[in-house]
Protein backbone atom coordinates (compact mmCIF):
# COMPACT_ATOMS: atom_id res chain seq x y z
CA UNK A 1 0.00 0.00 0.00
CA UNK A 2 2.78 2.36 0.93
CA UNK A 3 4.53 1.29 -2.23
CA UNK A 4 1.46 2.00 -4.32
CA UNK A 5 1.08 5.42 -2.76
CA UNK A 6 4.68 6.16 -3.46
CA UNK A 7 4.20 5.20 -7.09
CA UNK A 8 1.19 7.46 -7.43
CA UNK A 9 3.25 10.13 -5.73
CA UNK A 10 6.07 9.58 -8.18
CA UNK A 11 3.72 9.80 -11.13
CA UNK A 12 2.07 12.98 -9.81
CA UNK A 13 5.56 14.36 -9.14
CA UNK A 14 6.56 13.75 -12.73
CA UNK A 15 3.36 15.38 -14.00
CA UNK A 16 3.94 18.46 -11.87
CA UNK A 17 7.57 18.59 -12.92
CA UNK A 18 6.67 18.38 -16.61
CA UNK A 19 4.00 21.05 -16.16
CA UNK A 20 6.54 23.39 -14.58
CA UNK A 21 9.02 22.61 -17.36
CA UNK A 22 6.39 23.39 -20.00
CA UNK A 23 5.77 26.76 -18.32
CA UNK A 24 9.52 27.38 -18.35
CA UNK A 25 9.60 26.44 -22.03
CA UNK A 26 6.78 28.89 -22.81
CA UNK A 27 8.67 31.60 -20.90
CA UNK A 28 11.84 30.78 -22.85
CA UNK A 29 9.96 30.99 -26.15
CA UNK A 30 8.40 34.27 -25.02
CA UNK A 31 11.89 35.55 -24.20
CA UNK A 32 13.13 34.36 -27.57
CA UNK A 33 10.30 36.30 -29.20
CA UNK A 34 10.78 39.43 -27.12
CA UNK A 35 14.56 39.72 -27.13
CA UNK A 36 16.45 40.75 -30.22
CA UNK A 37 18.58 43.33 -31.90
CA UNK A 38 15.66 45.60 -32.74
CA UNK A 39 14.22 46.63 -29.41
CA UNK A 40 10.48 46.22 -29.57
CA UNK A 41 8.33 47.15 -26.56
CA UNK A 42 6.89 44.25 -24.60
CA UNK A 43 3.24 45.17 -25.26
CA UNK A 44 3.92 45.44 -28.99
CA UNK A 45 5.45 41.95 -28.87
CA UNK A 46 2.41 40.64 -27.08
CA UNK A 47 -0.09 42.25 -29.44
CA UNK A 48 1.89 41.19 -32.50
CA UNK A 49 1.37 37.58 -31.48
CA UNK A 50 -2.25 37.91 -30.36
CA UNK A 51 -3.12 39.88 -33.52
CA UNK A 52 -1.93 37.05 -35.70
CA UNK A 53 -3.72 34.51 -33.56
CA UNK A 54 -6.89 36.55 -34.15
CA UNK A 55 -7.42 37.30 -30.48
CA UNK A 56 -6.82 41.06 -30.78
CA UNK A 57 -6.65 43.63 -33.55
CA UNK A 58 -4.37 46.39 -32.31
CA UNK A 59 -2.81 48.69 -34.89
CA UNK A 60 0.97 48.05 -34.97
CA UNK A 61 3.97 49.01 -37.02
CA UNK A 62 3.94 46.34 -39.77
CA UNK A 63 7.71 45.95 -39.47
CA UNK A 64 7.41 45.16 -35.77
CA UNK A 65 4.52 42.87 -36.50
CA UNK A 66 6.54 40.99 -39.08
CA UNK A 67 9.76 40.78 -37.07
CA UNK A 68 7.92 39.30 -34.10
CA UNK A 69 5.70 36.83 -35.91
CA UNK A 70 7.57 35.85 -39.05
CA UNK A 71 11.09 36.03 -37.72
CA UNK A 72 11.46 35.66 -33.97
CA UNK A 73 8.51 33.48 -32.95
CA UNK A 74 8.95 30.96 -35.75
CA UNK A 75 12.66 30.88 -35.04
CA UNK A 76 12.14 30.24 -31.32
CA UNK A 77 9.64 27.47 -32.04
CA UNK A 78 11.97 25.76 -34.53
CA UNK A 79 14.77 26.06 -31.98
CA UNK A 80 12.54 24.38 -29.40
CA UNK A 81 11.74 21.50 -31.78
CA UNK A 82 15.38 21.02 -32.72
CA UNK A 83 16.50 21.04 -29.09
CA UNK A 84 13.84 18.51 -28.16
CA UNK A 85 14.73 16.26 -31.10
CA UNK A 86 18.48 16.32 -30.53
CA UNK A 87 18.11 15.67 -26.80
CA UNK A 88 15.81 12.72 -27.53
CA UNK A 89 18.35 11.32 -30.02
CA UNK A 90 21.10 11.62 -27.44
CA UNK A 91 19.11 9.86 -24.72
CA UNK A 92 18.08 7.01 -27.02
CA UNK A 93 21.55 6.50 -28.51
CA UNK A 94 23.21 6.55 -25.10
CA UNK A 95 20.92 3.79 -23.86
CA UNK A 96 20.96 1.74 -27.03
CA UNK A 97 24.75 1.81 -27.37
CA UNK A 98 25.30 1.77 -23.59
CA UNK A 99 27.65 4.66 -24.05
CA UNK A 100 27.58 7.89 -22.06
CA UNK A 101 29.19 9.88 -24.84
CA UNK A 102 26.89 8.84 -27.67
CA UNK A 103 24.91 11.52 -29.50
CA UNK A 104 24.31 12.32 -33.18
CA UNK A 105 27.15 14.83 -33.46
CA UNK A 106 29.79 12.69 -31.72
CA UNK A 107 28.78 9.59 -33.70
CA UNK A 108 29.16 11.41 -37.00
CA UNK A 109 25.46 11.13 -37.85
CA UNK A 110 25.18 14.91 -38.08
CA UNK A 111 28.20 14.95 -40.38
CA UNK A 112 26.59 12.32 -42.60
CA UNK A 113 23.35 14.30 -42.69
CA UNK A 114 25.31 17.43 -43.62
CA UNK A 115 26.97 15.64 -46.52
CA UNK A 116 23.59 14.45 -47.74
CA UNK A 117 22.02 17.89 -47.46
CA UNK A 118 24.99 19.66 -49.06
CA UNK A 119 24.94 17.24 -51.98
CA UNK A 120 21.32 18.12 -52.61
CA UNK A 121 22.03 21.85 -52.26
CA UNK A 122 25.08 22.04 -54.47
CA UNK A 123 24.18 19.45 -57.02
CA UNK A 124 20.89 21.32 -57.24
CA UNK A 125 18.50 18.43 -56.98
CA UNK A 126 15.75 20.80 -55.89
CA UNK A 127 16.41 22.54 -52.60
CA UNK A 128 13.06 22.46 -50.86
CA UNK A 129 12.89 21.64 -47.15
CA UNK A 130 11.63 18.13 -47.88
CA UNK A 131 14.23 17.17 -50.52
CA UNK A 132 16.96 18.52 -48.24
CA UNK A 133 15.62 16.34 -45.44
CA UNK A 134 15.59 13.28 -47.66
CA UNK A 135 19.19 13.89 -48.72
CA UNK A 136 20.17 14.42 -45.10
CA UNK A 137 18.33 11.25 -44.08
CA UNK A 138 20.24 9.19 -46.64
CA UNK A 139 23.50 10.75 -45.41
CA UNK A 140 22.60 10.10 -41.76
CA UNK A 141 21.76 6.47 -42.49
CA UNK A 142 24.98 6.04 -44.45
CA UNK A 143 27.01 7.26 -41.51
CA UNK A 144 25.03 5.03 -39.12
CA UNK A 145 25.82 2.02 -41.30
CA UNK A 146 29.47 3.09 -41.46
CA UNK A 147 29.70 3.38 -37.66
CA UNK A 148 27.83 0.11 -37.14
CA UNK A 149 30.14 -1.79 -39.50
CA UNK A 150 33.31 -0.30 -38.03
CA UNK A 151 32.28 -0.97 -34.45
CA UNK A 152 30.80 -4.40 -35.18
CA UNK A 153 27.25 -3.33 -34.33
CA UNK A 154 28.42 -1.60 -31.13
CA UNK A 155 29.32 -5.00 -29.69
CA UNK A 156 33.01 -4.19 -29.81
CA UNK A 157 32.67 -1.94 -26.77
CA UNK A 158 31.86 1.65 -25.95
CA UNK A 159 35.25 3.06 -26.87
CA UNK A 160 35.22 1.50 -30.34
CA UNK A 161 31.84 3.03 -31.13
CA UNK A 162 33.10 6.51 -30.33
CA UNK A 163 36.26 5.94 -32.39
CA UNK A 164 34.10 4.74 -35.28
CA UNK A 165 32.09 7.95 -34.82
CA UNK A 166 35.29 10.01 -35.07
CA UNK A 167 36.17 8.22 -38.30
CA UNK A 168 32.66 8.79 -39.65
CA UNK A 169 32.81 12.51 -38.76
CA UNK A 170 36.17 12.88 -40.50
CA UNK A 171 35.03 10.99 -43.59
CA UNK A 172 31.76 12.83 -44.05
CA UNK A 173 33.20 16.25 -43.20
CA UNK A 174 35.88 15.61 -45.81
CA UNK A 175 33.23 14.63 -48.34
CA UNK A 176 31.27 17.77 -47.53
CA UNK A 177 34.37 19.95 -47.92
CA UNK A 178 35.16 18.21 -51.20
CA UNK A 179 31.69 18.85 -52.57
CA UNK A 180 31.70 22.47 -51.40
CA UNK A 181 35.18 23.31 -52.66
CA UNK A 182 34.66 21.79 -56.08
CA UNK A 183 31.33 23.52 -56.56
CA UNK A 184 33.11 26.60 -57.95
CA UNK A 185 30.63 29.07 -56.53
CA UNK A 186 32.28 31.15 -53.80
CA UNK A 187 29.10 32.74 -52.49
CA UNK A 188 27.32 29.40 -52.29
CA UNK A 189 30.34 27.83 -50.56
CA UNK A 190 30.32 30.61 -47.96
CA UNK A 191 26.61 30.15 -47.31
CA UNK A 192 27.03 26.41 -46.91
CA UNK A 193 29.94 26.75 -44.49
CA UNK A 194 27.93 29.16 -42.34
CA UNK A 195 24.93 26.86 -42.43
CA UNK A 196 27.10 23.89 -41.44
CA UNK A 197 28.04 25.55 -38.16
CA UNK A 198 24.40 25.74 -37.27
CA UNK A 199 22.08 28.68 -37.69
CA UNK A 200 18.42 29.35 -37.12
CA UNK A 201 18.70 32.35 -39.46
CA UNK A 202 16.76 30.92 -42.37
CA UNK A 203 13.91 29.18 -40.63
CA UNK A 204 10.29 30.30 -40.91
CA UNK A 205 6.87 28.76 -40.36
CA UNK A 206 7.06 25.95 -42.98
CA UNK A 207 10.19 24.62 -41.25
CA UNK A 208 8.36 24.71 -37.94
CA UNK A 209 5.55 22.54 -39.26
CA UNK A 210 7.94 19.92 -40.58
CA UNK A 211 10.10 19.96 -37.43
CA UNK A 212 7.10 19.71 -35.13
CA UNK A 213 5.64 16.78 -37.05
CA UNK A 214 8.92 14.84 -37.09
CA UNK A 215 9.69 15.53 -33.42
CA UNK A 216 6.21 14.43 -32.31
CA UNK A 217 6.40 11.22 -34.34
CA UNK A 218 9.92 10.53 -33.07
CA UNK A 219 8.89 11.20 -29.50
CA UNK A 220 5.90 8.85 -29.66
CA UNK A 221 7.94 6.03 -31.17
CA UNK A 222 10.64 6.44 -28.52
CA UNK A 223 8.04 6.48 -25.74
CA UNK A 224 6.56 3.26 -27.12
CA UNK A 225 9.98 1.68 -26.64
CA UNK A 226 10.67 3.32 -23.25
CA UNK A 227 10.55 0.01 -21.35
CA UNK A 228 12.65 -1.73 -23.99
CA UNK A 229 15.26 1.00 -23.57
CA UNK A 230 15.26 0.37 -19.81
CA UNK A 231 15.95 -3.29 -20.53
CA UNK A 232 19.10 -2.43 -22.50
CA UNK A 233 20.84 -1.23 -19.31
CA UNK A 234 22.60 -4.58 -18.83
CA UNK A 235 23.31 -5.29 -22.48
CA UNK A 236 21.74 -6.96 -25.49
CA UNK A 237 21.46 -10.49 -24.10
CA UNK A 238 19.91 -9.20 -20.88
CA UNK A 239 17.35 -7.27 -22.92
CA UNK A 240 16.66 -10.29 -25.15
CA UNK A 241 16.18 -12.53 -22.11
CA UNK A 242 13.48 -10.09 -20.95
CA UNK A 243 11.61 -10.72 -24.19
CA UNK A 244 12.74 -7.59 -26.06
CA UNK A 245 13.14 -8.11 -29.84
CA UNK A 246 16.60 -6.56 -29.66
CA UNK A 247 17.46 -6.34 -33.37
CA UNK A 248 14.09 -4.93 -34.39
CA UNK A 249 14.10 -2.32 -31.60
CA UNK A 250 17.63 -1.30 -32.54
CA UNK A 251 16.82 -0.89 -36.23
CA UNK A 252 13.62 1.08 -35.55
CA UNK A 253 15.23 3.41 -33.01
CA UNK A 254 18.33 3.99 -35.15
CA UNK A 255 16.03 4.88 -38.05
CA UNK A 256 14.07 7.29 -35.83
CA UNK A 257 17.21 9.00 -34.56
CA UNK A 258 18.54 9.21 -38.12
CA UNK A 259 15.26 10.78 -39.26
CA UNK A 260 15.23 13.29 -36.41
CA UNK A 261 18.88 14.21 -36.88
CA UNK A 262 18.48 14.48 -40.64
CA UNK A 263 15.44 16.73 -40.44
CA UNK A 264 17.14 19.00 -37.93
CA UNK A 265 20.46 19.14 -39.77
CA UNK A 266 18.77 19.89 -43.08
CA UNK A 267 17.07 22.92 -41.51
CA UNK A 268 19.62 24.39 -39.18
CA UNK A 269 22.93 22.64 -39.81
CA UNK A 270 24.74 20.37 -37.41
CA UNK A 271 24.50 21.50 -33.84
CA UNK A 272 26.68 19.54 -31.45
CA UNK A 273 26.51 18.49 -27.82
CA UNK A 274 22.83 19.24 -27.14
CA UNK A 275 22.21 15.49 -27.25
CA UNK A 276 25.01 15.03 -24.76
CA UNK A 277 24.39 17.75 -22.19
CA UNK A 278 20.62 17.54 -21.89
CA UNK A 279 20.11 13.78 -21.30
CA UNK A 280 22.78 13.71 -18.60
CA UNK A 281 21.27 16.69 -16.84
CA UNK A 282 17.80 15.12 -17.20
CA UNK A 283 18.99 11.80 -15.75
CA UNK A 284 20.41 13.68 -12.83
CA UNK A 285 16.97 15.17 -12.16
CA UNK A 286 14.50 12.34 -12.90
CA UNK A 287 16.65 9.20 -12.83
CA UNK A 288 17.29 6.56 -15.52
CA UNK A 289 13.74 5.30 -16.22
CA UNK A 290 13.00 6.19 -19.85
CA UNK A 291 9.33 6.70 -19.20
CA UNK A 292 10.30 9.84 -17.29
CA UNK A 293 13.61 10.54 -18.95
CA UNK A 294 12.38 10.94 -22.53
CA UNK A 295 9.70 13.60 -21.87
CA UNK A 296 12.09 15.42 -19.57
CA UNK A 297 14.79 15.38 -22.25
CA UNK A 298 12.39 16.70 -24.87
CA UNK A 299 11.27 19.67 -22.77
CA UNK A 300 14.71 20.41 -21.32
CA UNK A 301 16.33 20.17 -24.76
CA UNK A 302 13.77 22.63 -26.12
CA UNK A 303 14.46 25.11 -23.32
CA UNK A 304 18.23 24.72 -23.69
CA UNK A 305 18.13 25.39 -27.43
CA UNK A 306 15.82 28.40 -27.22
CA UNK A 307 18.10 29.96 -24.59
CA UNK A 308 21.23 29.09 -26.59
CA UNK A 309 19.68 30.80 -29.61
CA UNK A 310 18.97 33.95 -27.58
CA UNK A 311 22.61 33.97 -26.45
CA UNK A 312 23.86 33.46 -30.01
CA UNK A 313 21.81 36.42 -31.23
CA UNK A 314 22.59 38.86 -28.45
CA UNK A 315 26.10 38.20 -27.18
CA UNK A 316 27.77 40.18 -29.98
CA UNK A 317 26.30 43.51 -31.14
CA UNK A 318 25.36 43.59 -34.83
CA UNK A 319 26.34 39.95 -35.27
CA UNK A 320 24.88 36.48 -34.89
CA UNK A 321 27.12 33.69 -33.59
CA UNK A 322 26.56 30.28 -35.16
CA UNK A 323 24.43 28.33 -32.68
CA UNK A 324 26.88 25.42 -32.86
CA UNK A 325 29.53 27.68 -31.33
CA UNK A 326 27.34 28.35 -28.30
CA UNK A 327 26.35 24.70 -27.75
CA UNK A 328 29.95 23.54 -28.20
CA UNK A 329 31.23 26.08 -25.67
CA UNK A 330 28.76 24.66 -23.15
CA UNK A 331 29.04 21.07 -24.34
CA UNK A 332 32.76 20.42 -24.60
CA UNK A 333 33.53 21.10 -20.91
CA UNK A 334 30.57 18.85 -20.12
CA UNK A 335 31.92 16.14 -22.44
CA UNK A 336 35.30 16.41 -20.67
CA UNK A 337 33.74 15.93 -17.24
CA UNK A 338 31.86 12.79 -18.36
CA UNK A 339 34.99 11.40 -20.01
CA UNK A 340 37.03 12.08 -16.88
CA UNK A 341 34.46 10.49 -14.61
CA UNK A 342 33.98 7.39 -16.78
CA UNK A 343 37.74 6.82 -16.78
CA UNK A 344 37.74 7.00 -13.01
CA UNK A 345 34.91 4.44 -12.78
CA UNK A 346 36.57 1.90 -15.07
Amino acid at each position, binding site marked *: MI*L*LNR*QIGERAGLGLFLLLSMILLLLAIAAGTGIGEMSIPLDTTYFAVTNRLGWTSVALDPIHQSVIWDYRLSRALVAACCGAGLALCGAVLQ*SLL*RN*NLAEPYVLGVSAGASTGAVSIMILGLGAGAVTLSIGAFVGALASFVFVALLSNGARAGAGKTILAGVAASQLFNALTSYIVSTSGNAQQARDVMFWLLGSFGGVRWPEFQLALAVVIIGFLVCM*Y*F*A*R*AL*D*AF*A*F*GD*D*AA*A*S*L*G*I*PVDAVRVILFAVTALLTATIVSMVGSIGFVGLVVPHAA*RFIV*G*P*SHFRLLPTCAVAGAIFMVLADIVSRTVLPQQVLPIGVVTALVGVPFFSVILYR*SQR*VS
Partner: protein
Amino acid sequence: MTIAAENLTWKIGQTTIVDSVSLRAEPGKMLGLLGPNGSGKSSLLRLLAGLRKAHAGQVTLDGKELRQFGRGAIARRVALVEQHANTEAAVKVRDVVRLGRIPHHSPLGGWTRADDAAVDSALERVGMGERREQYWQSLSGGERQRVHIARALAQTPTELLLDEPTNHLDIQHQMDLLRLISDISLTSIIAMHDLNHAAMFCDCLVVLQKGRVVAHGAPEEVLTEQLLRDVFRVEARVERSPHHGRPHIHFLR
Protein backbone atom coordinates in the same frame (compact mmCIF):
# COMPACT_ATOMS: atom_id res chain seq x y z
CA MET B 1 8.10 -31.83 -17.73
CA THR B 2 10.37 -28.88 -18.06
CA ILE B 3 13.20 -27.62 -20.28
CA ALA B 4 15.13 -30.05 -22.49
CA ALA B 5 17.56 -30.02 -25.41
CA GLU B 6 17.50 -32.53 -28.24
CA ASN B 7 20.57 -32.89 -30.47
CA LEU B 8 21.27 -29.19 -30.20
CA THR B 9 24.00 -27.89 -32.52
CA TRP B 10 25.24 -24.31 -32.82
CA LYS B 11 28.15 -22.90 -34.79
CA ILE B 12 30.08 -19.67 -35.16
CA GLY B 13 31.15 -19.65 -38.80
CA GLN B 14 32.61 -23.11 -39.40
CA THR B 15 33.44 -23.77 -35.75
CA THR B 16 30.97 -26.00 -33.92
CA ILE B 17 30.50 -24.58 -30.41
CA VAL B 18 27.64 -26.80 -29.25
CA ASP B 19 27.68 -30.26 -30.80
CA SER B 20 24.46 -32.33 -30.80
CA VAL B 21 23.78 -31.83 -27.10
CA SER B 22 20.79 -33.53 -25.50
CA LEU B 23 19.88 -32.94 -21.89
CA ARG B 24 16.80 -32.91 -19.74
CA ALA B 25 16.34 -30.87 -16.57
CA GLU B 26 14.37 -32.42 -13.71
CA PRO B 27 11.51 -30.30 -12.34
CA GLY B 28 12.56 -28.44 -9.20
CA LYS B 29 16.11 -29.83 -9.35
CA MET B 30 19.44 -28.07 -9.80
CA LEU B 31 21.39 -29.22 -12.84
CA GLY B 32 25.09 -28.34 -12.93
CA LEU B 33 26.79 -27.68 -16.26
CA LEU B 34 30.53 -28.43 -16.06
CA GLY B 35 33.38 -28.34 -18.52
CA PRO B 36 36.71 -26.64 -19.21
CA ASN B 37 36.89 -23.10 -20.58
CA GLY B 38 35.46 -22.92 -24.08
CA SER B 39 33.51 -26.16 -23.77
CA GLY B 40 30.27 -24.41 -24.76
CA LYS B 41 28.55 -23.93 -21.40
CA SER B 42 27.62 -20.29 -21.92
CA SER B 43 26.53 -20.89 -25.50
CA LEU B 44 24.35 -23.81 -24.42
CA LEU B 45 22.66 -21.67 -21.78
CA ARG B 46 21.95 -18.96 -24.36
CA LEU B 47 20.45 -21.55 -26.69
CA LEU B 48 18.28 -22.85 -23.86
CA ALA B 49 17.15 -19.28 -23.10
CA GLY B 50 16.18 -18.80 -26.75
CA LEU B 51 18.75 -16.03 -27.30
CA ARG B 52 20.51 -17.89 -30.11
CA LYS B 53 19.03 -19.92 -32.93
CA ALA B 54 20.28 -23.49 -33.10
CA HIS B 55 21.62 -24.75 -36.44
CA ALA B 56 20.19 -28.17 -35.72
CA GLY B 57 18.15 -29.84 -33.02
CA GLN B 58 15.69 -28.11 -30.75
CA VAL B 59 14.95 -26.83 -27.28
CA THR B 60 11.64 -27.88 -25.79
CA LEU B 61 9.67 -26.43 -22.92
CA ASP B 62 7.14 -28.90 -21.50
CA GLY B 63 7.60 -30.95 -24.65
CA LYS B 64 6.70 -28.03 -26.94
CA GLU B 65 9.33 -26.53 -29.20
CA LEU B 66 10.76 -23.30 -27.74
CA ARG B 67 10.49 -21.46 -31.05
CA GLN B 68 6.71 -21.86 -30.96
CA PHE B 69 6.61 -19.65 -27.87
CA GLY B 70 6.88 -15.90 -28.50
CA ARG B 71 9.77 -13.93 -27.01
CA GLY B 72 7.57 -12.58 -24.27
CA ALA B 73 6.18 -16.03 -23.44
CA ILE B 74 9.72 -17.45 -23.17
CA ALA B 75 10.75 -14.56 -20.90
CA ARG B 76 7.77 -15.28 -18.62
CA ARG B 77 8.94 -18.89 -18.27
CA VAL B 78 12.76 -18.87 -18.50
CA ALA B 79 15.00 -16.37 -16.69
CA LEU B 80 18.73 -15.98 -17.36
CA VAL B 81 21.38 -14.69 -14.95
CA GLU B 82 24.53 -13.78 -16.84
CA GLN B 83 27.98 -13.57 -15.35
CA HIS B 84 28.85 -10.00 -14.42
CA ALA B 85 26.16 -8.16 -16.32
CA ASN B 86 27.02 -4.58 -15.45
CA THR B 87 25.71 -1.12 -16.24
CA GLU B 88 26.96 2.42 -16.05
CA ALA B 89 23.44 3.76 -15.65
CA ALA B 90 22.63 5.24 -12.25
CA VAL B 91 19.99 2.61 -11.47
CA LYS B 92 18.85 1.62 -8.01
CA VAL B 93 18.39 -1.95 -6.78
CA ARG B 94 14.60 -1.73 -7.19
CA ASP B 95 14.96 -0.43 -10.78
CA VAL B 96 17.00 -3.50 -11.70
CA VAL B 97 14.54 -5.91 -10.08
CA ARG B 98 11.62 -4.12 -11.75
CA LEU B 99 13.16 -4.97 -15.14
CA GLY B 100 12.03 -8.52 -14.42
CA ARG B 101 8.41 -7.42 -14.82
CA ILE B 102 8.90 -6.20 -18.41
CA PRO B 103 7.84 -9.54 -19.99
CA HIS B 104 4.55 -9.33 -18.08
CA HIS B 105 3.54 -6.01 -19.65
CA SER B 106 2.56 -4.65 -23.02
CA PRO B 107 4.84 -1.70 -23.94
CA LEU B 108 2.42 0.86 -22.51
CA GLY B 109 0.71 -1.29 -19.89
CA GLY B 110 0.50 0.14 -16.38
CA TRP B 111 2.30 -1.07 -13.30
CA THR B 112 0.09 -3.18 -11.02
CA ARG B 113 0.03 -4.46 -7.45
CA ALA B 114 0.98 -7.90 -8.71
CA ASP B 115 4.17 -6.35 -10.09
CA ASP B 116 4.96 -4.75 -6.76
CA ALA B 117 4.31 -8.02 -4.97
CA ALA B 118 6.61 -9.95 -7.33
CA VAL B 119 9.38 -7.36 -6.93
CA ASP B 120 9.04 -7.27 -3.15
CA SER B 121 9.05 -11.02 -2.69
CA ALA B 122 12.03 -11.41 -5.05
CA LEU B 123 13.99 -8.81 -3.06
CA GLU B 124 13.09 -10.50 0.23
CA ARG B 125 14.02 -13.90 -1.18
CA VAL B 126 17.62 -12.83 -1.85
CA GLY B 127 17.87 -10.79 1.35
CA MET B 128 18.10 -7.41 -0.38
CA GLY B 129 14.73 -6.03 0.77
CA GLU B 130 16.35 -3.39 2.96
CA ARG B 131 18.68 -2.24 0.19
CA ARG B 132 16.09 -1.47 -2.47
CA GLU B 133 16.90 2.23 -2.59
CA GLN B 134 20.64 1.69 -2.87
CA TYR B 135 22.47 2.50 -6.10
CA TRP B 136 23.81 -0.35 -8.23
CA GLN B 137 27.27 1.21 -8.37
CA SER B 138 27.55 1.05 -4.57
CA LEU B 139 26.98 -2.74 -4.39
CA SER B 140 29.68 -5.39 -4.01
CA GLY B 141 30.04 -8.21 -6.55
CA GLY B 142 28.09 -10.66 -4.41
CA GLU B 143 25.28 -8.18 -3.84
CA ARG B 144 25.05 -7.45 -7.55
CA GLN B 145 24.62 -11.16 -8.33
CA ARG B 146 21.91 -11.34 -5.66
CA VAL B 147 20.11 -8.45 -7.33
CA HIS B 148 20.39 -10.19 -10.71
CA ILE B 149 18.86 -13.30 -9.17
CA ALA B 150 16.09 -11.15 -7.68
CA ARG B 151 15.46 -9.67 -11.12
CA ALA B 152 15.26 -13.18 -12.54
CA LEU B 153 12.85 -14.24 -9.75
CA ALA B 154 10.69 -11.17 -10.42
CA GLN B 155 10.10 -12.64 -13.87
CA THR B 156 8.28 -15.40 -11.91
CA PRO B 157 9.90 -18.02 -14.13
CA THR B 158 9.59 -21.79 -13.90
CA GLU B 159 13.15 -22.31 -15.17
CA LEU B 160 16.21 -20.41 -13.97
CA LEU B 161 19.43 -20.45 -16.03
CA LEU B 162 22.64 -19.17 -14.44
CA ASP B 163 25.99 -18.63 -16.16
CA GLU B 164 28.81 -18.99 -13.62
CA PRO B 165 27.10 -16.72 -11.11
CA THR B 166 29.80 -17.21 -8.46
CA ASN B 167 32.73 -16.14 -10.63
CA HIS B 168 35.07 -13.68 -8.92
CA LEU B 169 33.20 -13.84 -5.61
CA ASP B 170 34.94 -14.61 -2.34
CA ILE B 171 34.29 -18.00 -0.80
CA GLN B 172 31.64 -16.84 1.68
CA HIS B 173 29.62 -15.18 -1.07
CA GLN B 174 30.04 -18.20 -3.34
CA MET B 175 28.60 -20.48 -0.68
CA ASP B 176 25.80 -18.06 0.20
CA LEU B 177 24.80 -17.68 -3.44
CA LEU B 178 24.86 -21.41 -4.20
CA ARG B 179 22.84 -22.18 -1.07
CA LEU B 180 20.33 -19.52 -2.12
CA ILE B 181 20.01 -21.03 -5.60
CA SER B 182 19.68 -24.61 -4.33
CA ASP B 183 17.01 -23.49 -1.84
CA ILE B 184 14.92 -21.90 -4.60
CA SER B 185 12.34 -24.47 -5.65
CA LEU B 186 12.63 -23.71 -9.38
CA THR B 187 14.14 -25.92 -12.02
CA SER B 188 17.63 -24.50 -12.45
CA ILE B 189 20.53 -25.08 -14.79
CA ILE B 190 23.78 -23.56 -13.62
CA ALA B 191 27.11 -23.40 -15.42
CA MET B 192 29.96 -23.56 -12.92
CA HIS B 193 33.71 -24.06 -12.61
CA ASP B 194 34.26 -25.26 -9.06
CA LEU B 195 33.81 -29.04 -9.17
CA ASN B 196 33.56 -29.43 -5.39
CA HIS B 197 30.83 -26.82 -5.23
CA ALA B 198 29.02 -28.58 -8.04
CA ALA B 199 29.25 -31.87 -6.14
CA MET B 200 27.92 -30.24 -2.98
CA PHE B 201 24.96 -28.33 -4.36
CA CYS B 202 23.80 -29.89 -7.63
CA ASP B 203 21.30 -32.74 -7.89
CA CYS B 204 22.55 -33.74 -11.29
CA LEU B 205 25.57 -32.89 -13.48
CA VAL B 206 26.25 -32.65 -17.20
CA VAL B 207 29.86 -32.45 -18.36
CA LEU B 208 30.71 -30.81 -21.69
CA GLN B 209 33.91 -31.17 -23.66
CA LYS B 210 34.39 -29.33 -26.96
CA GLY B 211 30.65 -28.80 -27.17
CA ARG B 212 29.71 -32.44 -26.60
CA VAL B 213 28.13 -34.09 -23.58
CA VAL B 214 30.69 -36.56 -22.24
CA ALA B 215 28.99 -37.48 -18.96
CA HIS B 216 25.72 -36.94 -17.16
CA GLY B 217 24.08 -38.20 -14.01
CA ALA B 218 24.29 -37.82 -10.24
CA PRO B 219 27.50 -36.17 -8.92
CA GLU B 220 28.88 -39.44 -7.54
CA GLU B 221 28.44 -41.14 -10.93
CA VAL B 222 29.87 -38.31 -12.98
CA LEU B 223 32.83 -37.07 -10.97
CA THR B 224 35.23 -39.98 -11.39
CA GLU B 225 39.01 -39.90 -11.36
CA GLN B 226 39.01 -41.05 -14.98
CA LEU B 227 36.73 -38.19 -16.10
CA LEU B 228 38.83 -35.61 -14.26
CA ARG B 229 41.89 -36.96 -16.06
CA ASP B 230 40.27 -37.12 -19.51
CA VAL B 231 38.23 -33.93 -19.55
CA PHE B 232 39.86 -31.58 -17.07
CA ARG B 233 43.45 -32.87 -17.45
CA VAL B 234 44.07 -33.10 -13.71
CA GLU B 235 45.15 -35.97 -11.50
CA ALA B 236 42.81 -36.23 -8.54
CA ARG B 237 41.34 -38.53 -5.94
CA VAL B 238 37.60 -38.54 -5.36
CA GLU B 239 36.25 -39.46 -1.90
CA ARG B 240 32.92 -39.31 -0.19
CA SER B 241 33.10 -36.37 2.19
CA PRO B 242 32.61 -37.44 5.80
CA HIS B 243 31.05 -34.02 6.45
CA HIS B 244 28.34 -33.60 3.80
CA GLY B 245 28.23 -37.08 2.27
CA ARG B 246 28.79 -35.78 -1.27
CA PRO B 247 31.83 -36.51 -3.44
CA HIS B 248 34.90 -34.44 -2.59
CA ILE B 249 37.85 -34.02 -4.95
CA HIS B 250 41.48 -33.79 -3.83
CA PHE B 251 43.54 -32.35 -6.65
CA LEU B 252 46.98 -33.94 -6.78
CA ARG B 253 48.53 -32.25 -9.80
